[in-house]
């Protein structure tokens, strides 16, 4: 299982998914319209590193974070 965290204003509790790679995560998350509207403008991190490809295999216990648009300061 991998854990998906929704950061900042997305305001959704973390979920657990039984998936093999990041592409599967994307497919699962896009099934929920309340999440897919955020995905268009969100960055993705795997174990706290921003990723730029979905062709990444996942292992049990991995943490995926969805990071919506930011505004510090």
């Amino acid at each position, binding site marked *: 299982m991998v854990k998906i965290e929704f950061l900042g204003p997305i305001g959704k509790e973390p979920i657990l998914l039984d998936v093999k790679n990041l592409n599967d995560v*994307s497919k699962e998350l896009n099934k929920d319209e309340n999440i897919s509207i955020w*995905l268009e403008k969100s*960055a*993705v991190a795997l174990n706290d590193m921003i*990723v730029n490809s979905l062709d990444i295999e996942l292992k049990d216990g991995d943490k995926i974070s969805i990071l919506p648009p930011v*505004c*510090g*300061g």
Partner: protein
Amino acid sequence: MIEIYNGPLDVKEVISRWLDEINGKNWGAFIPFVGIVRKEDGIEALSFDIYEPILEKWFDDWQKKAKEKGAILKMAHSRGVVPVFTSSYISAVMSPKRRIALDLIDEFVEDFKANAPIWKYDVIDGERIYAEARSTAMNGAGLMSKKD
């Protein structure tokens, strides 16, 4: 190391402590940036969420970049509610040379706005509203967009 505080920053304490760090080091430039919450559009405060693990990594990368130029970066940020007229963000560059410090503070603050994992909310009549229009999608955003 980023300093994160609950609520507004004590600007004088933070700046004076940072200044003490370069005391006697023969460094020619100390350039602070202090962000202060403005009263506009009926807001009484701003509120912030921070995701520390990625923020620390983002800052470490910048610190390495600064070090290569012989400079040091400092940063303090608030979490939670920060009322108008108080400070939510302080950063500074310390460097032996002025030009390096001026360039770095500019690049650093710009990238901070675009890629530091911090989320801002306006507080109006006690309600917390995501400052969506003022927010920036991070580098690599849209990776999971189904349009791809």
